[in-house]
């Protein structure tokens, strides 16, 4: 979703230090809550399925369509149960692992591929550099969901294809940013110094230029994570993403769609979690932009003054 924000190329965060960063974070209450939520979510996604993962697939006749907020059963049924009596909480945790895992894999692939292509396109003056850029333009000029739908239809839905397709539609963002950065870095004095010391192209790119693009790439990847989660959820919701018996939050919303009248909670909770996750990521990203931008940072510093 946040293509627009991303193409505006946020400056790489060059924080003064961990303590200062922490102080800026405390100044922005929304960002603090968002970071807390994300940390909890990641921990829950990693350890939750280990603890109560088997409940996610264990049907229970007595809990069928159990309404949320009841203490009659175990705490794992506090958010209700689905039509087969499976615990929603357990399913949310397993869904979290799948959703975040797929999104993470897609972002990593997109960063690596996009970053590498961007390095090549930015460094070389040859024709293929321009060709790579045109390719990115083609990918970008079509709605990402449309592209993903076509490719998944033709290749067939599977987790590998899903990761590949999600990465494919995000590559241009990484490619263009890296390219812009490399084109600027290429002109710097230290590159000429390395050249005059007899360094080859490969060494210059890998040792001198590539490391400097990493902060920008990481920032964009963090912002892009929210967009990838949304795209994955939409694809899974439409039935072209992950296939049963595996499920993600998006697929859970789709399953619950048939029971809106009788059991609203089946599709409500996973959707709410998608929303809270992407919202938190966007809030953190927007905070990071402010904290990293010297012209905006005063907004976080000014609050430190004693109240008038």
């Amino acid at each position: 979703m946040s293509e627009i924000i991303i193409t505006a190329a946020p400056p790489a965060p060059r924080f003064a230090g961990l303590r200062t960063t922490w102080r800026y974070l405390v100044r922005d209450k929304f960002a603090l809550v968002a970071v807390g939520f994300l940390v909890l979510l990641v921990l829950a996604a990693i350890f939750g399925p280990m603890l109560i993962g088997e409940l996610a697939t264990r049907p229970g006749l007595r809990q069928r369509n159990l309404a949320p907020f009841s203490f009659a059963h175990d705490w794992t049924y506090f958010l209700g149960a689905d039509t087969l009596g499976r615990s929603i909480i357990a399913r949310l945790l397993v869904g979290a692992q799948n959703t975040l895992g797929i999104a993470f894999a897609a972002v990593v692939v997109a960063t690596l591929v996009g970053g590498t292509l961007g390095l090549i396109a930015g460094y070389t003056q040859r024709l293929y550099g321009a060709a790579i850029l045109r390719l990115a333009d083609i990918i970008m000029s079509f709605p990402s969901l449309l592209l993903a739908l076509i490719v998944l239809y033709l290749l067939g839905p599977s987790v590998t294809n899903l990761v590949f397709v999600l990465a494919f539609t995000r590559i241009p963002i990484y490619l263009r940013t890296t390219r812009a950065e490399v084109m600027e870095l290429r002109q710097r004095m230290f590159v000429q110094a390395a050249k005059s010391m007899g360094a080859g192209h490969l060494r210059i790119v890998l040792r001198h230029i590539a490391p400097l693009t990493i902060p920008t790439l990481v920032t964009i990847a963090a912002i892009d994570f929210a967009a990838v989660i949304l795209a994955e959820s939409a694809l899974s919701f439409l039935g072209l993403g992950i296939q049963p018996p595996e499920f993600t939050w998006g697929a859970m919303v789709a399953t619950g769609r048939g029971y809106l009248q009788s059991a609203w909670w089946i599709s409500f909770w996973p959707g709410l979690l998608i929303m809270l996750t992407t919202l938190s990521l966007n809030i953190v990203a927007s905070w990071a932009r402010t904290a990293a931008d010297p012209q905006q940072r005063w907004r976080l510093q000014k609050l430190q003054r004693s109240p008038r």
Partner: protein
Amino acid sequence: MLGFIVRRAMQSAVAIIGLLVLVFVLTRLTGDPAALFLPLDSSLEARQEFNRLNGFDRPIYLQFLTYLGDLARFEFGMSLRQNRPAMEVALQAFPHTLQLAVIAISLATFFAVVVGSIAAARPGGLFDRVASLVSLAGASAPDFWVAIVGVMIFAVGLDLLPTSGTGGPLYWIMPIGVLVLRPFGLLVQVVRGTMIGVLSTPYVKTARAKGVSPTVIIFKHGLRNAVLPVITVAGDLAASLVNGAVVVETIFGWPGIGKLMIDAIIQRDFAVVQSTILVTACAIFILNIAIDLAYALLDPRIRRQTT
């Protein structure tokens, strides 16, 4: 300026050809085209016959030439399920999506400009903070979930609006409401960002010092200069409304091109899938040219530079 437009149009044309090549390559190189074009339960003989009839056993470059020839003559084959030319089916669905998209993007732009400008007038103020949070939430909300919650509350719970289908004005409220959300959220951020930038320029300070009223400063001095990035972003968002349209149309049973595409994908009606792709791609192509034109007409710098 003509040169500028022609150059941009060429770029978009290259993009469309690229997409068509991608579809061609993926359909021919991922195994058996008959498996894509024919229903899943078709017999082996039928598949071989189909491959021979359609020339899928010929060399790949010959196939590509035939493919291009068919495209040039707007031949997309018949829809398997509806027994009508696939292009006709796609073109019939297109206006429904277009109506939704035009209304949604207009509403989103209008409200985003108003809210973003007011928020930019006092950055860090109460209105600004509320607007920022609301716009972030709008941009982060999964549209399919918002649509479902909407159905849950307004159709199932309160029984105010119809769950799905087309008809009177009531049928428009939820699809438009869901579709507006994301472009609105993103546009507010863009408007706010550009407006803060514009409002801190010296000429705005001069106007303020002269005693020009804040409303005039914001909506006349500020907005006129902030309008360019907003148009570009709104144009991009209009193109990506197709994403939302697929989801919204599926949920609300809207007979537009997004629903047609999903239905065709599920029914494996490949001729229709291909036609919907091409219709959408052409619509985006035209939209891109329109944005470039608007940009060139509105910005005197581009206008003069390129004449």
